[in-house]
């Protein structure tokens, strides 16, 4: 019978302000999820061990935690798989990241729910209620199928690198829901949503670390949703409102005029007001040859690119 050591993050604010680690040994069968292991530890060895869970079947999203540093749903992670990956070592169990722990593996989810609510995660039609239900085609639902799978487990939020650097960033899960409604043909707030999501700490804060896509246990791909919200912002004529959008615009200008990125254009186009005050840094970059010619860098057959930029239609 396999035996596993669990090295668990403990935080019991009633008795101490300091977090600590505790090791537990457990004998178990071949098939045991991490959640089952934690619950057995709680039932058989230590009733003070706190964990949040509900459905045990990867639907409620309550039991997300870190196993060997990687955010997972405890209920859909096999202990034997973790040991196969870590070379049969002790399994480290921690609360999800980017949250304050309340007790052991239980964290304060309040900031997550506040941000979730801030994206207005519900349909807001712009017409009176119909007499019959609104029929939506399969194709139209397909566009938002991925995002509609989100169970709000916060695995994405737990490892978001932008959030780690800026706690105010709205975050991947909320924007997956934002896209799910912005792109729903029954919704009447597409433009308003694009505006709401494009502000400070909004979609343009995403640093594209891709952890959200990597960790999501449901295949939601939140980064892709954020990307598509950027596309909607451009479609709604809001691309130039934020420095992030202007940064993207600089790529489009570079493509049209030369085909390759004109790096020297990026700074003044992205930050037209701030750029002049960053002169000492700019001079250093010039001195090191890191500010290439601001003239377009022309590729061969640029005419093809120009035609494509006119003819390709966006379909978000």
């Amino acid at each position, binding site marked *: 019978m396999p035996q596993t050591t669990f090295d668990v993050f403990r935080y019991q604010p009633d008795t101490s302000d300091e977090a600590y680690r505790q090791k537990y040994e457990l004998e178990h069968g071949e098939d045991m999820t991490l959640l089952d292991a934690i619950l057995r530890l709680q039932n058989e060895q230590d009733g003070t061990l706190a964990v949040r869970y509900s459905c045990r079947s990867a639907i409620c999203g309550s039991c997300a935690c870190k196993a060997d540093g990687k955010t997972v749903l405890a209920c859909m992670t096999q202990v034997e798989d973790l040991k196969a990956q870590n070379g049969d070592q002790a399994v480290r169990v921690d609360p999800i990241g980017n949250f304050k722990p309340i007790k052991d593996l239980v964290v304060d989810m309040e900031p997550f729910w506040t941000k979730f609510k801030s994206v207005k995660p519900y349909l807001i039609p712009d017409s009176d209620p119909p007499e019959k239900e609104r029929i939506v085609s399969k194709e139209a639902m397909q566009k938002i199928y991925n995002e509609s799978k989100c169970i709000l487990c916060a695995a994405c939020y737990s490892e978001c690198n932008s959030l780690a650097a800026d706690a105010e960033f709205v975050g991947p899960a909320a924007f997956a829901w934002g896209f799910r409604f912005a792109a729903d043909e029954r919704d009447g707030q597409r433009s308003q949503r694009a505006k709401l999501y494009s502000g400070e700490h909004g979609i343009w804060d995403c640093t594209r670390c891709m952890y959200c896509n990597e960790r999501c246990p449901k295949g939601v791909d939140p980064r892709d949703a954020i990307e598509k919200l950027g596309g909607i912002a451009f479609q709604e004529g809001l691309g130039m409102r934020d420095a992030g959008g202007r940064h993207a615009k600089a790529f489009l200008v570079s493509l049209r005029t030369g085909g390759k990125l004109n790096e020297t254009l990026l700074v003044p186009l*992205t930050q037209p007001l701030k750029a002049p005050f960053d002169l000492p840094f700019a001079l250093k970059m010039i001195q090191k040859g890191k500010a290439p010619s601001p003239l377009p860098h022309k590729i061969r057959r640029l005419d093809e690119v120009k035609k494509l930029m006119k003819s390709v239609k966006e379909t978000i």
Partner: protein
Amino acid sequence: MARKFAYYPGCVAEFSSKELNSTTKALAPLLDIDLLPMPAATCCGAGDVAEAKPNLYLTLNVRILSQAEEMGVDIMTICNVCTLNLRRANKLVKEDPRLLEAVNEELVKAGARPYEGTREVTHLLWYIATEEGLSLLERQGPKGLNGLRVAPYYGCQLLRPSSVMGFEDPDQPQSLERLIVALGGEVADYEAKSKCCGFPILLARETTALKESHVALSQARDAGADCMVTPCPLCHLAMDAYQRKAEKVNGETYNMPVLHLPQLLGLALGLDNSVMDFKRHMVPVDQVLEVVGA
């Protein structure tokens, strides 16, 4: 016979980080590869074009793939972001014939060659960090890194999403470590080697980005690294060119020289320093050259 690749250095290596391009080209014969130019290739869009105009991003990247197909070779990149953008487009059209057909229709209308979906995209690191690549290095009789302590820095987009990249475990990457050890260096290990450098938002959200680069820079410093090495010129800009800014924002000192992957290979293989153009770096690499004896 040297293996031929369609060489896609990406815009940053061609312009602001020319030292990466010149080193890669000088290294190619030593690595038994022939890098063929792609004079009609555009920028991959770096995630920015995908964010503004997703269909345009896809079409332009398929146009690049088609050019490699016309040349009869696979693409080699030296940039994480180019690798992800090209591989993602390749995966999307290879898995969806109807999408490929729609993209090809656009390409043909614009006078460009349609894509048949026959090409692959690889990164220099993936080529050289295999058993075959390592034995290739060994055959060159490297003069070695003389125990240089190198902090491997992967960044994000060469590892994630693994469904698109797939070369190695994104949570326990080992390719850079294998190379460092094979070349006679020591690995300065640290947790944040695959965290984000912040580059994509460096201009739009400078403070957030500099707090991101701080995590890897400070950990590499604390691991006693003589330098950091990265396979991505965008990570290099964030870690090297913006390092002094990161020091200011975070109130710390890193003094961390940052090498492009081909520069590390070049040092170990005895490539001329002038080709590797270290003077273009913001953080001086003198201490590195001293250890290696270059």
